[in-house]
């Protein structure tokens, strides 16, 4: 077995295109990818627990509080996500007899892969991004827009009316909100003068210069479009259980369903992370520039601050779900096309004038 790997490595190294350091680079990238994958999955697992506990509190009930493992003396219920995973893994994946089997099984993967792949361009702490590419923002937009294929194919391949209705709703909704989202990001690009996420964070250094202040309408549009893109309440007509049972994943069970679930929650974390990066200074500390002396972790940017911001926005996701009733379908379309897109267009025009006149924080570039 090891000789096979050795031979493969020797073959790759013998190719004329490979430079001396390229093998180490590949190994390092794979290690980083695996570590990131595991941390995101664990974060996502505890997000499901947090969701049930937080919404439980908001609705004056308790939420999962039974399952614990290894006798750890922290609050009960913390092992609930692991119990859920074991339950889902042991369940049978039922494939409807009239379904298109290949596409039916491919769809969950198509939903989960883009959600994970976008994490490559998120700057996690000063100077660290898995793939520091110049056109990072475009990469994000491109992959985010391919995520909807999983949902559309799931709805179509299931060969069921309810699933298909969910898929059609998803296609229309995602296309509508992607435009508003793209326009909101154009505002960020204009203010920072870069498509690179690391440079966007650097452009927000200084007093009152996190972009949510000069670009407040764009921040609101981006975050709400993000909620709509992830199909979370109050925009969850795609799976609206009271109208079309469970929408696109009505025929899925076991791990095939779990992959859709994973994709949705990872997308939530991603939208929170990107909202922090675009409008709240990413890994920057809020005290940066205000306090000159004090402990280093408090002043300097780090993963801690990014994590805190992500947690805040995730809490907002859960808060909205517990608070707002579901939008009607035509209201969603109206909000996307007739409210958000004009708002972003007007603000981009305002911003363009500000950039030309070099007024205040808009002229950072």
């Amino acid at each position, binding site marked *: 077995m090891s000789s096979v790997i050795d031979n493969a490595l020797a073959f790759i190294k013998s190719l004329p295109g490979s430079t001396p350091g390229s093998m180490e680079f590949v190994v390092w990238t794979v290690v980083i990818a695996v570590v990131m994958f595991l941390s995101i999955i664990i974060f996502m697992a505890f997000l499901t627990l947090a969701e049930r506990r937080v919404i439980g509190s908001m609705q004056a009930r308790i939420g999962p509080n039974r399952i614990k493992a290894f006798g750890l003396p922290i609050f009960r219920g913390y092992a609930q996500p692991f119990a859920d995973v074991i339950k889902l893994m042991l369940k049978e994946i039922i494939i409807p007899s009239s379904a298109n089997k290949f596409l039916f099984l491919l769809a969950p993967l198509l939903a989960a892969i883009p959600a994970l792949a976008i994490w490559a361009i998120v700057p996690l702490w000063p100077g660290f991004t898995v793939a520091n590419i*110049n056109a990072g923002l*475009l*990469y994000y937009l*491109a992959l985010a*827009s391919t995520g909807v294929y999983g949902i559309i194919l799931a709805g*179509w391949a299931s060969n069921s009316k309810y699933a298909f209705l969910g898929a*059609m709703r998803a296609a229309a909704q995602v296309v509508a909100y992607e435009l508003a989202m793209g326009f909101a990001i154009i505002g960020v690009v204009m203010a920072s003068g870069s498509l690179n996420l690391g440079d966007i964070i650097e452009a927000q250094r200084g007093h009152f210069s996190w972009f949510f202040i000069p670009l407040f309408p764009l921040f609101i549009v981006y975050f709400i479009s993000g909620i709509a893109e992830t199909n979370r309440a109050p925009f969850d007509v795609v799976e609206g259980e009271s109208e079309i049972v469970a929408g696109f994943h009505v025929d899925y069970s076991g791990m095939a369903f779990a992959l859709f679930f994973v994709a949705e929650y990872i997308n939530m974390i991603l939208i929170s992370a990107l909202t922090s990066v675009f409008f709240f200074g990413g890994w920057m500390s809020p005290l940066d520039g205000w306090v000159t002396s004090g402990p280093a972790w408090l002043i300097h940017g780090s993963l801690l601050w990014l994590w805190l911001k992500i947690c805040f926005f995730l809490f907002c996701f859960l808060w909205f779900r517990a608070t707002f009733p579901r939008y009607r379908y035509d209201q969603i379309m109206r909000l996307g096309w007739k409210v958000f897109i004009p708002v972003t267009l007007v603000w981009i025009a305002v911003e363009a004038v500000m950039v030309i006149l070099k007024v205040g924080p808009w002229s950072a570039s």
Partner: protein
Amino acid sequence: MTFTEILFYVFSAILVISSIGVITARNPVHSALFLVFAFFNSAVLWLLMDAEFLAIVLVLVYVGAVMVLFLFVVMMLDINVAQMRAGFTKFAPLGIVVALIVIAEIGSVVWLKSSAIDAAALGASSGVAAPAAAEGYSNTQALGELLYTQYLYPLELASVLLLVAIVAAISLTMHKRTGQKVQDINAQVAVNAKDRIRIVKMVTEKE
């Protein structure tokens, strides 16, 4: 053969196979999915040529928006495949002629361009390899600078054309049908609790 060349051949082979799949698949949804796959592979080919902006925009525009709407329509339509295939032999000669013309056009463009590059390259260095990109070269920035300086008017013309097309397409759908039930959103938003709920005070009744 360098590693990049191997990648090029692998992805071009997949691209050709999936393009053939687009026109041979029996199910229109499968055809559309083959087309999506072909777009992804051509994006990879562009990436191999350091044209990351074109590659990403291809995925963003065609895969992310155009093909989603395409699939939307194709899935909704009940397409009779047998009927569509009925005229195949009748239209085949015309199709072959069109295909030959397109191949000749593409071939002539490629030939003219490559001979122009050859002539330019002969002055600097021998061989047809494109000059390596300088350190810190950004394809996105280079394209943007060209588009907004040298090619500003063609760009503006193209965008105005697209705008006209959008206005035309929307105006086609703007006719009022009778008997349509439409929600008046303004009335819905302007509604108050007072309009909907009437609180009635009444004396408690006793048994």
